[in-house]
């Protein structure tokens, strides 16, 4: 995922502060993490294991066993993917912060280089 510097996006942040954007991204990642935890903790397969015994000789038992396995994988992979997505968002926010920090350092360096003699005279 590329990182867009808020200073090069051309939107001038539409009136939002840089800190608020980063906080919003982190907050949205928290929502996804919460969902990932709930889905990851669910165990739908345990409710299906008893069907084969309850309907011995029927066709549902085998289908229930297959679904139990599928659901275990499906729930688990959704949780993993959701958490990975949340992590990617936090990384984006962190990258914004790094980019901002680096930009800030660059600007300070340029400002220092451009000060010239007048600055030194003030001292």
């Amino acid at each position, binding site marked *: *995922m590329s990182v867009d510097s808020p200073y090069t996006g051309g939107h001038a942040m539409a009136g939002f502060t840089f800190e608020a954007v980063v906080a919003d991204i982190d907050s949205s990642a928290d929502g996804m993490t919460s969902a990932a935890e709930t889905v990851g903790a*669910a165990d*739908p397969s345990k409710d299906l294991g008893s*069907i084969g015994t*309850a309907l011995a000789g029927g066709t549902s038992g085998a289908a229930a066993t297959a679904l139990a396995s599928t659901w275990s994988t499906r729930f688990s992979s959704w949780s993993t993917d959701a958490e990975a997505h949340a992590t990617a968002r936090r990384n984006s926010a962190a990258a914004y912060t790094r980019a901002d920090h680096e930009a800030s350092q660059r600007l300070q360096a340029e400002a220092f280089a451009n000060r010239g003699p007048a600055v030194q005279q003030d001292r």
Partner: protein
Amino acid sequence: MVTIAQVLTWESTTLDTSADNLYALRKQLIDLQDEVDDSRVPGTWYGESATAATKEHSALVDRLRDVTAEVARVAASLDLAGADIKAARTDLEGALDVARQNGLEVDHTTGDVRDPKTYDDEFERLAATVTVMSVTTQLSDALKKATEADADLARALGDASDGTIDGGDGTLSDAGDQLPAGLDGMTDQQIAAKYGQDVVIDSLRAWLGVEAELATWELEGYAEAGYKVMGDGKVVMDLTLEAGLGREIGVGGAEVDASAGGTTNLQLTFKDQAEADKFLDGLAGAAGDLGLLDMGNVPAAVAGNVADYVMKQDITSFKTGVYGKASAEFESAVASGEAEGRVDGYYDWVNEEYGIKVSASADAAVGEKDSGLSGSASLSGEIKFKGDQMSEAVFDGRISAAVANDKLDLGLPASTSTGQAVDVQLKMNEDNPRFEDFKAAVGSGDIDGAIDIAYDDAEVTVRSTTTESYGSEEIDIDAKVAELEIEYGAEGEVANQVWVRQGGQGYWVDIDPKAVR
């Protein structure tokens, strides 16, 4: 097809338990809607990474909707399969009982039925052959029902496994609104017939005054007629009559004493609207069929004519007020409610049951406190008894869509008509798996607890309706369900949307009123 031996071992309660657990999981998933909303890409975030995040979020939510739909579909399918298999097993055991009583031998593997006896009498031999055929058919039907229930459930499980159940693109609640596989392919009419037999679709209530088409009852001063079109197409007509006319109608050995209660209530059931309308058309003529000898006592003659006419119909309930006895008869059941609200008692001569009614004004008695119902919301209660045992309890009332959603996990749209309120009916009876808990709560005076049980497990009907009041002048009414010429007050009610949840089941079925009309 499965065998008798196999079905006799099938445990429907295991399916019910699995369904309950999956409903709980469905709720967990639906409750993630806040997390889904909170994790949307914030509007302050621009650029390529925001676009990529939006795409990824959308894909994750789509998968979550699908899995929610899968859980809901499998839960509902387990629910229906459990009920169908329980019914099939009951049918099977009934047929085996008949076989046993008649000395028949049943092969539990092949389903073959054999009569080992020999007959000299041809008539006895024929009778035995008919019994064998009847038992064979009953066994075959029960096995077919069980096999279909198993196949429907297997299909739902397979669809979920294959990932072919689509959760749509709405909310998680929308995705979780799934019907069981056993209803696949059913038309709106078939669904209405299956689930709508206790559901009022359209109704007309008329207070009959001085000059009305049903003028016979004005002679007694007051009459009220209710005309209801049910979800399965039947028409139920409730006639509340003065005791004088009630005396003329003898049903189930009723001896109506005018002093025992102010009114009698007669319920007639017709198989369809045409039959009901035919009854109304013929009523005036029958009532006015007077001879010269009747001229000295016209009111009594008209009452007698109406009684004779009514007696020819299918009378499904005939209630006489027993208000004076109510507190004594139902002292333990009424519990604390009696002191706080008006309680009416009746005896139904057709169904041989007592009943009490607690009016909506007695809010405290039917659970206003802590029930989540507020403001104008209230429920009326009616409890029926066969002998000393409670046989059914019904609570009716109008509550806000928001309360209905909270109490019933229904997901009604906020824009539900009629002031965002819906009519709710909760019915508990002996068929309900939690009826004993419910009875215990009522018996101990815990009406709030009883209503909470009903919200969780009762047969529930929710209706969004449009009500229209008619003026007090003499008018002709065409309320889609009937034409009545009346001169006092009348009110018509038309259902716009109807939702039904059967007792002990966890899925909701929409009934399309248009499919019934």
